[in-house]
């Protein structure tokens, strides 16, 4: 069976700045793999161990992402693929998904795609549904538990963990699944494995390799600003804790906050 995991690089935290050209500036912030993708990789590994075959890590990004791809290989992924081209910069989620779909079609033998619930920088969660539709595959999003993967019977069943309910869903393979954090505990790659992958260069496919032309995004960012500052707060003081707590409750009641 061939499982593919989509991996995005993101800044560790979002203390980003905004460049004059409206791009987001994350300079000086450590880069990590999107946390939810770590869970997607772990889930891929679990089913790869059970069914054998390939586990490919795919990123649509730049060569500055290779460190994250290597980490995924150190965790146990068997293959990797980087989609990179100046034409892929600044695509919205729907357009990015079309590029990835072209790569998946070119690979030809993928049975299941795992992505994270959302990226922690763009936070849209639109990529997995967009990818599924671009491929014409079913989607199972917000998966908190994969119950069964049956490559022979071409079915996957999983629990979707939504805000107030849990749905049990089965879908025909090939399918796209997005996973949440609760699904498993990702393994740490050993130092030995990390050392073993340091020289691996993932194959790179560009727009011409994929035969994608005329890529456009229907949405564009035309303004980007920091949030308005929060109004200045007040510290509650008093001779002892009981007085401070009473003052706090008084203030909350007077301001009709409670």
């Amino acid at each position: 069976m061939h499982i593919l995991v989509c991996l995005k690089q993101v800044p560790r935290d979002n203390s980003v700045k905004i460049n004059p050209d409206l791009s987001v500036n994350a300079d000086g912030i450590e880069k990590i793999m999107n946390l939810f993708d770590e869970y997607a990789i772990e889930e891929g590994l679990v089913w790869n161990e059970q069914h054998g075959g390939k586990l490919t890590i795919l990123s649509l990004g730049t060569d500055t992402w290779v460190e994250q791809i290597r980490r995924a290989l150190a965790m146990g992924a068997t293959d990797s693929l980087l989609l990179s081209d100046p034409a892929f910069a600044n695509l919205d989620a729907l357009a990015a998904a079309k590029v990835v779909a072209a790569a998946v079609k070119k690979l030809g033998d993928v049975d299941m795609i795992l992505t994270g619930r959302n990226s922690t920088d763009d936070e849209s969660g639109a990529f997995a549904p967009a990818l599924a539709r671009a491929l014409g595959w079913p989607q199972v999003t917000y998966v908190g538990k994969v119950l069964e993967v049956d490559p022979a019977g071409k079915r996957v069943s999983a629990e979707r963990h939504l805000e107030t309910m849990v749905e049990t869903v089965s879908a025909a393979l090939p399918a796209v699944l997005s996973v949440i954090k609760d699904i498993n505990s990702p393994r740490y790659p050993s130092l030995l494995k990390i050392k073993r992958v340091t020289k691996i260069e993932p194959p790179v496919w560009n727009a011409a390799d994929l035969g994608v032309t005329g890529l456009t995004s229907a949405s564009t960012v035309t303004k980007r600003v920091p949030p308005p500052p929060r109004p200045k707060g007040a510290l509650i003081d008093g001779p002892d804790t009981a007085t401070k707590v009473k003052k706090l409750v008084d203030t909350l009641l007077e301001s009709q906050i409670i």
Partner: protein
Amino acid sequence: MSGVLVFIEQVGDEVAAISRELLGQGQALAAALGGPLSAVVIGAQAGTVAAKVVALGATTVYTVTDPALAVYTTDGYVAAAQAAVAAAQPALVLAGASFQARDFGAALAADLDAGLAVDVTDLQVAGGAITAISPSHGGNVVNTYSFTPGTLVVALVRKQSFAEAADGASGGTVTALALPATTIRTQVTSVAPKSGVVNLTDAAIIISGGRGLGDKDNYYKLIPAVAEALGGAYGASRAVVDAGWVPYEHQVGQTGKTVSPKLYIAAGISGAIQHLAGMRTSRNIVAINKDPDAPIFRVATLGLVGDVNDVLPLLTAELKRRLGR
């Protein structure tokens, strides 16, 4: 293409609060776009709900009822929504931004080659052009999106962004549409409500505890009591979720839930940027921390320097006394 089509979410046979908000704001947006405000109700209860949507101001309410739509599936709902889009020819489709709405809204936008904006907090129309505002990067960046002229825009709107529509309108019509032939490729074998879980994203008041609570027993001794006295829900920092004190559903932050309640109390939480990402848009923030330099105080409306072990029992008692719960 003109006007607005609102995707109606249902709670039993009632119109969900988010949909009432979308109908409220949809009225002005439709007028600015020079078209009608229409809505689509999908599923078994569509008939009963449609009448309520008319009362909330929609001029045409499309219903799509079919046994295949008894439970939510992406394929079924997208096909039904596409039928409504074909009938209404809107310039803008509005839906909520819940997990289910994202599953459906992003798929619909992909199918229709629409412009998509997710987690929208405001929408504007000027000279026929739509712009959508939505935050990213844990609220540290506020983006304004524009869309290629002539493309349909699908906006998935965050709760509590707009005022709800008032009841009492009349004159709208209900039109039944057939579900277009479609293959539903997923089978839902069970739908179970999560037992005993308060939906954090719906709660008006939240108290969250962090590592400052010391241990799991202390968290459960002190935090739910305050939540109960306030009639609110309780949350947690990632530190205590990862330590196994509290289930993941309660995690607030960059990799947990984004909440925006009327009151958020952070107790024994330092205020790391990833935690702030999930709660900084709360209307009022109360911080309780023994370290006066903790970063949480920088976003707090009201700060109280103290030990949670002293403050929280006193707070519970005082709230019970004053609120009578």
